[in-house]
């Protein structure tokens, strides 16, 4: 092996070392470990001017960091928190956030960059090998530990006094039960609450947008309206819990477009009311396509056909959207004819 043909890109250190290594090479094994290559100096190690330059760069970085911190404090004090500036190409942004972030970022980054540059150019870069020792203990230590343990176990007589042992394990096993018991009051038992909503016979369908009860003539074919049960107000204590079950989606179809018999029966002049809560995991499903009569869930893309009993036609939902039976009261307002006949929202074990 000759060093003459070795190309430039090989590190000089390795080149030199290879040459040396061959001369003392293990004739038997050309793959043997040649040992650590000799240390190669950096420019900073041999040229004091280069080292000085490095020092100045490090000091400059630390100085920039100090200035940036001053900048941070100045920005904090002087920039109003609601001031907006236009920064190309980011857009209209908060001047304070921008200034604080950049100054803080600079202050931190420069400390890091200075420290690393210092380490890389001025601290010793001689590679050192450290011995490893097996993790496992020596046989003597192992024997000693085992013996100690046996001695301890023997002195406690845990093996001999079975009654103590059994009762102790029993006590230790039981005591965490108190902790488990304490968790009982985290919440009430489900009971049948997942099966019921605020809807009941005679409850008017109140338009979410206008907060007025809906009349059939308000609902045009191709339109989409959301409704809540009469009497439920946004300011109510239990509004969130109730709307999470009672939210209603109202559309109007041409009665001859309704393919499902029950859907038609439960509708009023083509107006159908379905639960807005997806039967998959409960997202408010409402991406209604008025030409296809499909409604898509934005969370997991379950798709239901509202002209066919809201059956699932795509996606991970397991059953159709519950329909609310509606009619018109004496005053001509749309009303529910009862609660949903099945639980709304995601399925659960007791749903059946």
């Amino acid at each position, binding site marked *: 092996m000759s060093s003459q043909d070795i*190309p430039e890109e090989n590190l000089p250190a390795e080149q030199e070392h*290879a040459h040396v*290594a061959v001369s003392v090479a293990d004739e038997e094994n*050309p*793959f*043997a*470990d*040649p*040992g*650590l290559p000799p240390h190669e100096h950096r420019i900073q190690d041999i040229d004091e001017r280069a080292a000085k330059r490095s020092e100045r760069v490090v000091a400059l970085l630390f100085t920039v960091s100090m200035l940036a911190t001053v900048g941070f404090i100045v920005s904090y004090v002087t920039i109003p928190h609601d001031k907006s500036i236009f920064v190309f190409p*980011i857009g209209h942004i908060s001047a304070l*956030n*921008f200034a604080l*972030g950049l100054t*803080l*970022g600079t202050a*931190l*980054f420069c400390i*890091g*960059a200075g*420290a690393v540059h210092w*380490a*890389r150019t001025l601290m010793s*870069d001689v590679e*050192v*090998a*450290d011995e*490893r020792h097996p993790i496992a203990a020596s046989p003597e230590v192992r024997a000693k530990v085992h013996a100690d343990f046996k001695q301890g176990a023997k002195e406690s007589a845990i093996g001999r006094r079975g009654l103590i042992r059994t009762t102790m394990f029993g006590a230790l096993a039981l005591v965490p039960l108190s902790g488990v018991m304490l968790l009982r009051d*985290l*919440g*009430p*038992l*489900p009971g049948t*609450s997942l099966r019921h909503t605020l809807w009941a016979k005679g409850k008017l369908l109140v338009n*979410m947008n206008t907060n007025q009860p809906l009349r059939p003539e308000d609902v045009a074919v191709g339109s989409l309206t*959301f409704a809540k049960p009469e009497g439920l107000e*946004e300011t109510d204590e239990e509004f969130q819990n109730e*709307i*999470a079950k009672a*939210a209603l989606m109202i559309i109007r179809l041409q009665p001859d477009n309704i393919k499902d018999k029950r859907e038609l029966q439960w509708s009023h002049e083509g107006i159908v009311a379905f639960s807005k809560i997806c039967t*998959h*995991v*409960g*997202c*408010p*499903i409402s991406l209604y396509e008025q030409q296809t009569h499909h409604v898509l869930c*934005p969370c*997991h893309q379950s798709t239901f056909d509202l002209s066919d009993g809201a059956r699932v036609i*795509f*996606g*991970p939902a*397991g*059953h159709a959207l519950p329909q609310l039976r509606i009619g018109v009261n004496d005053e001509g307002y749309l009303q529910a004819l009862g609660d949903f006949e099945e639980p709304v929202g*995601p*399925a*659960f*074990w*007791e*749903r*059946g």
Partner: protein
Amino acid sequence: MSTTPNEEARSRGKAPAGERVADWADGRLGIYSLAKSNMRKIFPDHWSFMLGEVCMYSFLIIILTGVYLTLFFHPSMNEVEYHGSYVPLQGQLMSEAFSSTLHISFDVRGGLLIRQIHHWAALIFLAGMFVHMMRVFFTGAFRKPREINWLFGFLLFVLGMFTGFTGYSLPDDLLSGTGVRFTEGAILSMPIVGSYISFFLFGGEFPGHDFVARFYSIHILLLPGIMLGLMVGHLILVFYHKHTQFAGPGKSEKNVVGMPLLPVYMAKAGGFFFLVFGVIAAIAAVTQINPIWAMGPYRPDQVSTGAQPDWYMGFAEGLVRYMPGWEINFWGHTLVLGVFIPLMLFGLVLAAIALYPFIESWVTGDKSEHHILDRPRNAPTRTAFGVAWVTVYMVGLVGGGNDLIATHFNLSINDVTWFVRIFFFAGPVIAFIATKRICLGLQRRDHDKVLHGRETGIIKRLPHGEFIEVHEPLSQEQLHTLTAHHQYEPAEIGPTVDENGVERKVKTSEKLRVKLSNAYYGEDNQIPKPSVEEYKEITSGHGHH
């Protein structure tokens, strides 16, 4: 201790202040013996060994910024009417959690910056853990004695996911609320106990009035507390085991080659903390994250399209999105497979990678310590498994973003979902086969390089007219590096007849182990590395040219 009190006092009296403080501490904490073994601890230099540091530092940044955020955040679901400085939400009803997050974002000077640093650091923390875990996996750094540390790391990743998720849910905005609703649906899908757990978690029906406060204590205390403990344990083990290193001249299973902790690593690692913090702060200065004001307060009857969780939950989101809607009703009960199977798969896929080290060590039967890292190509089956696993994970991420992929590439969301459904099964198989072939190809190339040298690209014409490419022999360093890896022999079923001639029964597990071992190390599953004899024969042959 042999010095008399007088002597000791005198020597200490003369010492500089720093030493005196150290002496004081040593007398009480024994820091010198600790420092003796650790101060000049050697760490090898490689960029990929710093991925873990990215995680550690982003975790520290998250803790620092998180503590700041707790000073202003109100973990309460009481309804309030908003009258702060963000105009488009004025007069709206919202929970105190949401309005205090608006307050942090618009009325606390620097609050938005800290919030953004916190959230960006969280995304980077999880991404860093993922990449760090893959580095450890593909280089075989999880082998003995580091299996427990692998598990610590894995637990950190999983807990990080849940810490992130609970934190993301705290502002009670429309997007995170949708995520919590999904959690409720997922819990409800659990057979028998689902509705009970859901009622206990939410203090009754969803959303109730409790989950923000409960998630808060989980997010700021319970999970980060466990994680901090695990991280300290993880670090102690890294120190104790000493870092792994790649094969190379002078590096062996018995040593570790690199730079000492003091000063080089202290400066590099310490500096790196500031670099990480600086980069994340700069990102938070120019890039908005989770603009909850644009999303609005949570209401269970409102939603936005493009409802996705943060990226680390995207894999679970994908599983749920591409699962068909299976539901079984029997005896008055419902088995919600459409949600429950993804829930199980989520755990199983994660468990697969967590338990892999134990499977591999069972197959190899190797009981020795490993401190020299594998190049991925030299462990083709492991690498192929890893790539297949990453493929499953990535298919999940793609599935989780199927709607955005559809709109941004003009595709049908149904087609994207079907593609993902098929690729969930086909993807890992293709990835496994392709990766293994690539690894074997690279092994062959290494094999040729060792025996025939490096191709120089120089074409030479010999006197008799033949053209040959000049191959340049490798240096001994290179030869050593390329041949340093250990190759296992495939296991065989031992003699089925014992020394007394009595037939013994071969256990199924043993048969399985032998099968797996052959799949790992059998013929065609690894390229035997060149032997010294081969090398000598060929190099002497070269001389005749």
